[in-house]
């Protein structure tokens, strides 16, 4: 049996809608699909935008509440800041002092027995320009406090007295270098009163044959704030003991006058 097409020949156009509408149906379908896709994308974006807007609003409100809570406690924070600043200032002043007591103790240990002193004048001089000048300055951002012994200042002790002989004076110079922290020992004068020296001004009870001397002992500059902070941060065990320093110095001392430095 054979199938027979009953449609007239001129009306057979392929049968498709597209063919019949000249492609307009595809255009409409495409437009509908495009609009649907665009609507979907727009909806997603809009939803995301609204949810983010709400989230931002919520976060801002929360932040404002927390900030308000923190603001009520702000005096505590400022008090703690004041305490920290004051503590640092005091610790800095404490740590930047020169240890007169141990220096005097070491002086008594290193001085030869046949030397007599008539006066000891110690002073902490002005700050040397190894770092920024801190003397008399206002506290800066690092919390530096104006100390009467500013960081970088060089302590000096001037000794006046008499010795049994000039060689003893020389020995004294060498031994004074054994004091821990000493950077230089300078002989200012050493004269016998018989030769018209300054014996009378230094000590009236010195024998006339003994040389009268004046020696200046200079110490290392006082620590800077950064060094003080580092020292404060380190443990107490890292601080050199004056006794240990003296023992080391004594070991380095040689009777011939050579000092290992």
């Amino acid at each position, binding site marked *: 049996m054979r199938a027979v097409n009953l449609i007239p020949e001129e009306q057979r156009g392929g049968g498709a809608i597209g063919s019949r509408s000249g*492609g307009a149906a*595809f255009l409409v379908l*495409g437009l509908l699909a*495009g609009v649907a896709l*665009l609507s979907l*994308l*727009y909806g997603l*974006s*809009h939803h*995301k*935008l609204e949810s*983010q807007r709400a989230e*931002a609003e919520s976060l*801002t409100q929360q*932040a404002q509440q*927390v*900030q308000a*809570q923190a603001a*009520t*406690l*702000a*005096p*505590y924070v*400022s*008090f703690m800041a004041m305490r920290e600043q*004051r*503590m640092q*200032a005091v610790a800095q*002043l*404490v740590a930047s*002092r020169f*240890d*007169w*007591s141990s220096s*005097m*103790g070491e002086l*008594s240990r290193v001085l030869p*027995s*046949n*030397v*007599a*002193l*008539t006066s*000891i*004048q110690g*002073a*902490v001089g002005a700050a040397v320009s190894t770092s920024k000048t801190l003397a*008399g*300055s206002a506290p800066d951002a690092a919390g530096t*406090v*104006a*100390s*009467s*012994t500013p960081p970088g200042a060089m302590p000096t002790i001037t000794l006046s007295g008499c010795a049994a002989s000039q060689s003893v004076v020389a020995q004294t110079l060498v031994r004074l270098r054994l004091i821990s922290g000493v950077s230089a020992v300078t002989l200012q004068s050493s004269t016998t009163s018989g030769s018209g020296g300054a014996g009378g001004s*230094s*000590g*009236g009870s010195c024998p006339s044959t003994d040389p009268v001397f004046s020696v200046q002992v200079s110490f290392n500059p006082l620590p800077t704030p950064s060094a003080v902070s580092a020292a*404060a941060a380190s443990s*107490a065990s890292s*601080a050199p003991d004056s006794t240990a320093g003296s023992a080391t110095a004594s070991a380095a001392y040689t009777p011939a006058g050579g000092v290992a430095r």
Partner: protein
Amino acid sequence: MTGRDRMVVMGLILLAVIAGGWLLVVSPERKQAAQQEAQVASARAQLQGAQAQAASARTAETSYESAYTSVVNLGKAVPPLQEVPSLVYELDQASHQGDVDFNSFSSGGSSSSSSSSSSSGPLSSSAAPAASATPAAFTQMPFTFVFKGSFFKLARLLGKIDGFAQTASGGSAGGHKASVDAGGVRVNGRLVTIQGVDITLEGGGHTAGQAKSAELTATITATAYVLPASEGLTAGATPAGPAGASASAATSAAPSSPTSPAVIQGAP
């Protein structure tokens, strides 16, 4: 126009419509969403910062008592006023303990010079700090005092004076009992910085051995420190709370141990 050409034209129209819709409607919305995302991130960061700030504030609140105690203790080393009587008393006590004669005390003098000259001025017991005004946080209060004693006793006295206030890692305060630790600084008395020491022998020279017991005169130039007048000891803070703290915050920071009010009962 053939059917194929029509299809191409319609495709182009379709593409144009979709592109226009994208550019005019969807893209601005997406751009706004991206901007809003940045705002959310910013708000989140702001919240985190505020939370950290609040946490820090709460930590400060909880540790207020100890901080207040340490500030008060530091006030013993650096008081808000000159407090000359207490300074003299402390020096006198130290000299007594060290068997040294406390000969004289005078205020004023150079704050950084090594000179031992004492430009004496009137000593005010608790007046506002008037000495050597420096722009520093602490006002310097230079003074000069004279002690008499043997060399070693004087040397020990210098150590005692340093021990009035020293770092916690420092050695013993030399007999001071009321040592309080104020945040790494051990406070036994006034913070004093010794600038100059002038030791002279009375009656001529001695050998080093003899000098141990010889009478020496030590003129010491030193500086004490005073808190700025604007701050005061605690900057207006009380044990209950700092100045400006709200009542609720102050109440929560108050000592947890309740103190019952004193009741006086009179017998008929």
